[in-house]
């Protein structure tokens, strides 16, 4: 593969291209600089012609600042000609220019320029000078900027004699925008060319090479680069390296928020795990009717839109809540740790439930039978056998919920009250004080515990599982509970689910009430207004999610195929990078995106594209995992047969891989759609006047106490999400049936 000849070939071609690329770049940029200088010169001469007819000092003082209207950012200083001493004296105008003039007027360059001005010749100085623009009241930057210096003569009334001169500073940075763009383009061209060359020289299957390269490009630009940019900016203050931001972020004010996040996380994780365990145990280890119903109901909150549970809690228990105020006349507030824990537990216990029941399901219940056979009591068996065996599942569940709780953004935004958590704190910093650096620093602090929990879960707990897959799930199930215990657990579960159901019903009720908390009479007016004001948001949200869905699905499956079936350098890194957004809080992604994509050549802030890209990047990990699991179950000989018969990689993907992993593909797509429809933590940073998101609109309405409108939009969102979800469940279930009948030999 890496033979000497090929390396030589590669190096030669690369060298030739790089030289050509560099040559083209330098010609173009010097052409551009020359053009720029020429243009400025013309403009400056134009400016010189606007010299006022009245030539008092005051007129000049009014005249010189107008240079800005001709060349943005330029500064001018009027120099009067002193006939006695035969030299120019700074009179009025920009302080920046004055300082520069004082510093340099005796240099040969300036002398020469003034001489030529005396002979009525305008002049541009050969070199550029550092000028400190902060001296002027209308500062353009706190930094000193390299500037071009021009001198133009101002003639007296006769028109033949010099009476003074204007010295004009033009910051070179007005041109750097363009030349930066030029530079980026040429660097990009070089990178792309080298990549293509690399693939063409060193692989025997260029198509695969290009796909791998493309994936790398995507993850580097849209995952690695924003994060690096966020890290970089958190270490910068006013354009220079500084630890200021981090010092601030680690100050007691924000440590309180960190402590708040952690406390909330621990509480939510512990309670959710407990509740999840009860549900999982009921479903997997006892016998009762309506297991299916219970499972479905208990998994629902996972796909419930953000704000909906909080909204409903506020409607019931808020300051003007139906239960707290109208029924019980209480004066306690739901805002704060208590309310937050409540909504988070409701929203996140399904994660614990699903994780633990996955583990319980795989514990062969014959192990329990054996223990009972050895005359252990049921309680002993549970304590000594079942519980220890499910410990990895319980730990996993706890860590997963903990991660989710810390990253949660929507609920604290509505419900935290005076209680402070990091995710919303970062949001306030960014939106309230436009302090992006501090926002990203806070998100990084938030990342520490979530990432730790995620990695511990992944690499330690998940591997420690004692579960022995016997392959034969035992059909008989020995109940470990006696009847009273089971009935108690069952009753608890139904009440819990009933409470959740009533929360959703509250939202529906909220749609038809004039003014919740004050006037409970029936109305349909909310619908009209909500639809009128929210229609574009609904349309945009659905459109953007619908665009992101197939792209994310296809990309995930393609990446899965490449990672499972192909060998290429950097495979681990690619997989890790794709998985990264799974472990980091949405807030951080959102902030890093506005930091990274707010300038050329990747000026995406404000477009719909940045939202779509964000959806895709955030949902790729789950799709990738689905795809990888699915592919591992497919005999590689099937794909190899297709390749052998003449199919190239894209054809194999299209005709063989995709149809075979269709269930994974479809469920990843539905997952992406639902998650995109209900996204908020990253999206809230990325929406713009043009592209709004339904969830953000719901938040705005709730914050402004327009609960009726918020309820209507929440209901609409829930209906959309539920129907897509249900549809996909049906399709995938059918698919699995057909799959089973045709695949297994």
């Amino acid at each position, binding site marked *: 593969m890496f033979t000497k000849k090929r390396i030589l070939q590669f190096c030669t071609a690369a060298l030739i291209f790089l030289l050509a690329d560099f040559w083209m770049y330098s010609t173009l940029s010097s052409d551009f600089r020359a053009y720029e200088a020429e243009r400025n010169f013309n403009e400056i001469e134009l400016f010189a012609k606007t010299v006022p007819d009245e030539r008092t000092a005051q007129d000049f003082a009014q005249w010189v600042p107008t240079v800005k209207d001709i060349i943005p950012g330029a500064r001018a200083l009027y120099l009067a000609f002193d006939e006695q001493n035969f030299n120019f004296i700074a009179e009025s105008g920009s302080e920046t220019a004055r300082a520069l003039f004082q510093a340099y007027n005796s240099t040969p360059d300036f002398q020469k320029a003034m001489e030529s001005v005396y002979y009525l010749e305008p002049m541009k100085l050969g070199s550029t000078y550092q000028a400190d623009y902060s001296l002027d009241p209308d500062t353009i930057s706190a930094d000193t900027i390299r500037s071009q210096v021009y001198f133009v003569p101002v003639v007296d009334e006769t028109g033949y004699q010099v009476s003074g001169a204007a010295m004009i500073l033009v910051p070179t940075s007005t041109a750097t925008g363009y030349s930066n763009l030029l530079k980026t383009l040429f660097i990009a061209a070089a990178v792309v060319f080298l990549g293509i060359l690399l693939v063409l020289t060193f692989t*025997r299957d260029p198509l695969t090479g290009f796909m791998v390269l493309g994936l790398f490009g995507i993850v580097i630009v849209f995952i690695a680069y924003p994060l690096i940019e966020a890290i970089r900016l958190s270490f910068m203050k006013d354009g220079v390296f500084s630890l200021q931001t981090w010092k601030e972020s680690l100050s007691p004010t924000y440590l309180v928020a960190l402590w708040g996040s952690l406390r909330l996380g621990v509480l939510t994780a512990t309670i959710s795990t407990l509740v999840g365990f009860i549900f999982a145990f009921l479903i997997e280890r006892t016998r009762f009717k309506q297991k299916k119903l219970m499972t479905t109901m208990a998994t629902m909150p996972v796909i419930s839109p953000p704000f909906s549970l909080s909204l409903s809690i506020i409607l019931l228990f808020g300051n003007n809540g139906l239960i707290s105020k109208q029924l019980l006349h209480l004066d306690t507030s739901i805002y704060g740790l208590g309310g937050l824990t409540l909504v988070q537990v409701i929203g996140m216990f399904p994660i614990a439930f699903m994780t633990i029941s996955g583990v319980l399901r795989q514990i062969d219940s014959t192990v329990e039978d054996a223990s009972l056979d050895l005359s252990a009591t049921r309680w002993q068996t549970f304590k000594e056998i079942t519980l220890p065996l499910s410990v990895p599942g319980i730990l996993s569940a706890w860590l997963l919920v903990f991660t989710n709780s810390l990253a949660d953004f929507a609920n604290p935004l509505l419900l935290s009250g005076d209680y402070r958590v990091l995710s919303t704190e970062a949001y306030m910093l960014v939106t309230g004080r436009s302090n992006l650096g501090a926002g990203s620093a806070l998100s990084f602090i938030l990342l520490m515990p979530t990432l730790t929990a995620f990695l511990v879960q992944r690499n330690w707990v998940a591997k420690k599982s004692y579960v022995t897959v016997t392959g034969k799930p035992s059909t008989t199930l020995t109940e470990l509970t006696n009847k009273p215990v089971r009935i108690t657990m069952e009753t608890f579960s139904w009440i819990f689910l009933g409470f959740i159901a009533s929360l959703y019903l509250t939202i529906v009720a909220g749609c038809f009430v004039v003014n919740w908390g004050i006037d409970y009479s029936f109305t349909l007016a909310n619908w009209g207004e909500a639809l009128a004001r929210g229609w574009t948001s609904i349309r945009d949200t659905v459109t953007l999610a619908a665009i992101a869905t197939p792209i994310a699905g296809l990309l995930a499956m393609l990446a899965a195929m490449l990672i499972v079936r192909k060998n290429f350098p950097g495979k681990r890194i690619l997989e890790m990078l794709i998985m990264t957004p799974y472990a980091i809080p949405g807030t951080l992604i959102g902030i890093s995106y506005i930091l990274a994509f707010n300038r050329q050549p990747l000026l995406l802030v404000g477009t719909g594209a940045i939202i779509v890209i964000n959806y895709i990047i955030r949902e790729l990990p789950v799709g990738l995992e689905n795809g990888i699991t699915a592919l591992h179950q497919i*005999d590689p000989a099937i794909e190899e047969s297709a390749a052998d018969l003449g*199919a190239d990689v894209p054809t194999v993907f299209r005709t063989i891989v995709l149809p075979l992993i269709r269930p994974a593909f479809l469920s990843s797509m539905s997952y992406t759609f639902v998650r995109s429809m209900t996204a908020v933590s990253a999206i809230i940073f990325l929406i713009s006047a043009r592209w709004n998101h339904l969830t953000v609109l719901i938040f705005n309405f709730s914050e402004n106490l327009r609960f009726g409108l918020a309820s209507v939009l929440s209901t609409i969102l829930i209906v959309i999400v539920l129907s897509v979800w249900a549809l996909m469940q049906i399709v995938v279930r059918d698919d699995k049936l057909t799959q089973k009948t045709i695949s297994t030999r």
Partner: protein
Amino acid sequence: MEKKSVSVTLEHVTKRFKDVKGKSDVIAVNDSHFVIEPGELVTLLGPSGCGKTTTLRMIAGFELPTEGKIYIGNEEVTMLPPNKRDTATMFQSYGLFPHMTVFDNVAYGLKLRKIPHEDIVKRVNETLALVGLSDYGDRAPSKLSGGQQQRVALARSLIVTPSVLLLDEPLSNLDALLREQMRVEIRKIQKELGITAVYVTHDRVEAMSLSDRVVVMKDGFIRQIGSPIDIYENPNSRFVAGFVGKAAFFPVRVKKQEANLWTCQLGEKEVVVERATTDVEVGTEAVLMARPESLRVTEKGKGKIEGKVRMNVYLGNSMEAFINTSFGEVLVQIDDPHAKKVFEEGEEVSIDFTPDRVRLLNENEA
């Protein structure tokens, strides 16, 4: 289907795999160098893990040789991906497309070649007829028996008229009877079409009965290449001798060589041997190899090796006598046992052989 025959050449091909942990390398194929003639069927035979599959996969293009070159015909294909090679592989697990019918499976290769629909239908039906599956076009592969699936795989490979057919233990999932039928069928079709074929197996009977030539491999090395008769009768090492058939080995000392007659010391006796590998030298230790059917049991003292019958196993057309000797247990095959004197179990006997039916092998070869 038209005949087209090309050769396949492996030129000093070596394949190293990175170990799972990336520490040391596994050498799966070590400096393989041989030519498969046009229209020839060559089997790769050897114990598990000797690199047969890897060799085949390199010819198909699924693996890239670490060193060396591969030619199909006169064209070098070392770097060509599988879809650009004119080879067709039959996998041990068949690799049928589970989401397509039998017809679509077979038609897949033709569709990729953008052949008009009517032609595809015609050729698929022809090919299905060839493998005896005319009525099964609409079935899903999973609704077929193992043998039928195997034939679908064969049809799918044959329909694209590959220059080279590669078969990786294609019959190992079938029962004994079906295996024999399919073996005959594959050989028949291969000969009819004149396709060059490489057949991987670890079953020596399959290798012997099927191939023009056999390549015997061990630990990535090619140990011997030859016709079935050749490797059976004239193995060049103790390993090959033992792998391709039953054999007894006796340690001897080579005393002298006259023309092609070698005189050796076997225990107390001096024996003469007519055949030997080229690396046997006078004055060294060597191994005398004898096939069971080349040995005879005679009365005590009349043969070359003394022993005692431990057990007789009657097989109908022949009998196997297990005889304990000072060199260990020796198997003697007695053909047409009824025509001969049979020695009882426990009887003291002697084993005899003629100089032209045994072979001297170099002692140092494993």
